[in-house]
């Protein structure tokens, strides 16, 4: 082993997104709330990262800031080579459109569009022609070939989330963000969706960052980052559901005693 004994096992691979000294503060004076407190973190290409932490820990805020959905107070965020802090809304929108894929907990799809139209929506917005071969690969992977002309209301929750995964993948983004993507699903559908996310990393070389509070969901990731009170407090590589759960309990009891 020639690597230094740190958690950064894939040091040689490029970084897809990086937050440096990232802080996010709400309000002023006495009512000030620090949501993120000088967080520094790298999300490497081809890695599936899960962000965990109790509610109010800042895990969603971290993801929103890194994904260009929310502004931050200080520090810097980079997606690939692009520094987000200096971008105007318009440029940010374009960045999200062209380089980032999103999967939300709910309301991922436009009810008026068919599954196929929903999948190509980001490219339609950009006015680009989708790469048909890639599109086919993605659709086959999530197993939606026979549901393409259905509207969201005609699909089950799991199927809807699979459409969302396909949409996020379709434009071949530099990085994909998921905000509790399985939060509204039963465990079987959830496992399916998480499987697709892991496959997209393993087989298609995508980069995925997912916020979750479910230890078994986190176990699909290559790496788990734990947040508490706006800070990164721990990290776990090749996590298992039990390992994550134990770690969470630890924080919980610490939090209670402190």
């Amino acid at each position, binding site marked *: 082993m020639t690597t230094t004994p740190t958690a950064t096992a894939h040091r040689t691979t490029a970084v897809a997104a990086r937050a440096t000294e990232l802080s996010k503060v709400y309000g002023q004076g006495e009512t000030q709330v620090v949501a993120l407190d000088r967080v520094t973190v790298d999300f490497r290409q081809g890695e599936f990262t899960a962000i965990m932490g109790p509610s109010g820990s800042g895990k969603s805020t971290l993801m929103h800031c890194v994904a260009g959905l929310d502004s931050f107070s200080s520090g810097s965020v980079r997606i690939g080579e692009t520094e987000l802090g200096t971008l105007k809304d318009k440029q940010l929108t374009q960045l999200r459109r062209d380089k980032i894929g999103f999967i939300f907990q709910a309301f991922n799809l436009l009810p008026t*569009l068919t599954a196929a139209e929903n999948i190509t929506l980001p490219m339609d917005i950009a006015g680009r022609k989708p790469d048909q071969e890639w599109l086919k690969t993605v659709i086959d992977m999530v197993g939606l070939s026979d549901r393409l002309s259905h509207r969201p209301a005609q699909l089950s929750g799991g199927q809807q989330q699979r459409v969302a995964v396909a949409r996020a993948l379709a434009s071949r983004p530099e990085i994909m963000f998921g905000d509790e993507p399985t939060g509204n699903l039963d465990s079987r559908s959830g496992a399916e969706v998480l499987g697709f996310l892991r496959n997209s990393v393993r087989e298609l070389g995508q980069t995925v960052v997912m916020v979750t509070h479910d230890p078994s969901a986190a176990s699909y990731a290559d790496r788990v980052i734990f947040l508490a009170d706006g800070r990164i407090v721990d990290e776990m590589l090749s996590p298992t559901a039990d390992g994550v759960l134990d770690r969470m309990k630890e924080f919980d009891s610490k939090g209670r005693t402190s």
Partner: protein
Amino acid sequence: MLRTALRNVLAHKARLLMTVLAVMLGVAFVSGTLVFTDTLSNAYSNQSAKSYKDVAVAVTTYPDLENGKKDQGIDARTLKKIQGLDGVASATGRVSGFAGVADPDGKLIGNGWSNTGANFEPGANGEDPAYDFTDGSGPAKAGEIALDRATADKGEYRTGDPVRVATNGPVKEYTLSGVFTTEDGQVNAGGSLVLFDTPVAQKLYLTPGHFKDVTIAADSGTSEQKLLDAVKPLLPKEAEAQTGKELADDQAKMIEEGLSALNQVLLAFAAIALFVGVFLISNTFTMLVAQRTRELALMRAVGASRRQVKRSVLLEAMLVGAIASVVGFVLGLGLATGLRSAMSMFGAKMPAGPLIVSPTAIAAAFAVGVLVTMLAAWLPARRAAKIPPVAAMSSVHAAPTTKSLVVRNSIGGFITLLGAAGILAGAAAGKDGRMLIGAGAFFALIGIIVLIPLLSRPVIALVRPLISKLFGVSGTLAGQNAVRNPRRTGATASALAIGLTLVTGLSVLGVTMGRAVDKMTTDNIKADYMFTMAGGGSLDTSALTALEKVPGVSALSPQTAADFELKGEWAAASGVTPGDVERLINVTPVAGSLDSLAEGAIAVDDKTAKSRGFKVGDSLPVEWADGKKGKLTVGATYKGNEFLSPVLIDQKAVVEHQAKPYIREIWVKTDGGASEANEKALVDALGQNPAISVMDQQDIRNQFGGMINTMLNIMYGLLGMALLIAVLGVINTLAMSVFERQQEIGMLRAIGLDRRRVKTMIRLEAVVISLFGAVIGVGLGTFLGWAIGQTVRDQVPGYALVLPWDRIGVFLLLAAVVGVLAAMWPARSAAKLNMLDAIKAE
């Protein structure tokens, strides 16, 4: 329940604002109309009471000047007798008639209908009590006149200036002896008044030594009635006497009747505005109820009954209606004041007076405002009551009611068919079909409104590919969003559809009629000029002789009202110049020859000949105006038209029996056609008489066409109200859509739709909905215009339906603008949506 309702009103201020605005506009219109007409009626009554203040008894006669009977009116002897009666303070003889004053440019001051001349009759003190001189004094000799203040100001005349005055004879120049003010109603309404020395006025308007009217003032202590009884026996039998009070009352009543027509027209527009408003209000409450589904379900869960829920919604509507009524009423007062100044700006001077706010106006405003709002909220309230208590527990966002539209569509289809059948039947029935069309139109409109949700999908589907192509994703999404909730789209489009149905219908009719009049003029008039007297009076015979002498006049004919009975029945006959008349106006003989006119025969138009059974060669008994009897032969029949009387006779024959024939118009054809030089020669020959108007063919066309245009413009102005409410409706719908689709818009923003395109999306949705309403309205309006046109086509020769494409284009463009304007605020708020709030589940 009241507390809940009140809280809800306060909690949804912004949303209810739209409803308040809609109700407010309607109420403002209603109360403005009522207050305006009340105020006007009061001012006019005060005015007439004032002008008859000093009149205890008024005597009037109706002299028949045309047949030259002597000794008409009240002679000086009778006046003397009246003056000598007990209790008479003064008795003043009056004569009056037309007198037009020329301004320094030779143009008539005033509009011709209210240019009066009268006599100045000083009492013992040298003053005429009816007139207050502010400058100079009354006319004392033949060459002098006095003018009312406003007319003198308009002509910039000062005492001592020469003033040209036209009466029914040639123009004459007089010296201005003084300027006066008066309480005379006509003068206060903007008319002009010229005062002559009494002998001059008598000669002009009656016969020397005679008066047309006598106004009598009573000594204090003598009752009007007693005086009336004393005066009556002294009067000739054709004279009428009334007390001053009766006169004032009569006049007030006449004004009231005149105003009630105006009242009805304005109220009709208020009704349209309110009708359109109902959709907006109903829409708002539907949305409020949908938005509060869980809240209402919670109320049901904790024990509120259906009735209570329904009542709470209705109570909310009542509160909103009441608030809107108060604001609307205040706005209506402003509107009434504004209307008055607007009308005086257009030259209709109105007597001044305080704003009259009657209890009826207040009650009507509130009844209308509150009832309309509650009526509109009734369906949404029912829907609210049907929300099951479990809805409180469900966590899903309440889906819009996707209840089947089958029942609604069947009913709508039936009503529409019924209406369309009525319209078609009415159109087929010709001029008797108007009632049928009216009823049909009403049903068709209602039916279409019921059907509008059904129509929205196919109609909007037509434009969706186009906007997708033009605007990309924004266009595609906007097109889909526009048909997402057909009920809401329908209700929104209805407001515009109703307004545009009326506007288009009127435009089609107006433009068609205008074109028909144009065609009629072009087809039938060959003359270069037509001369008429201002105010519809008779031209003097001197005008006829003067025009005849103008070099270059190649044909000339008057149309003189000939007064005789043919075969025991009065005939609307005109004296014309034989030989010339057919060169001036299109007279196509059907049988016989028009040359026979010169030999003393008459010509009859085909319709009259048919209805009275006259044939060429018939010899008909005639009784002339002077009582002489004889025979007239029918020499020809001709195809009648709008510009010719149904019976024609040689002008000479008319003059023989009528001393002062009534010359309605003179037609002239000149060598070289209408030209500036020819017109000048003719006008000069008439002594540049300001009271005679000259019209060439274009002027004649404009006279009718202009009237139609003015009417259309007024209608457009009033229907603009409906448009305004439609804008509010579109804003309302869009705001609601944006609110409902927060998450969706947030998601779109997150995956890369920029703000500009979010705005475009909302704007396009508004434009699509607006245009949809407009297309429905324009279509229905055109159909209606056609149908009504069918009922009048028999009466309008040369009728041909004209579709005013330019105007229709403007309407559609306007609808698109309405969409863009209405989308301004909702689009901005959609673009500003915080993505994170939007995408957070619940």
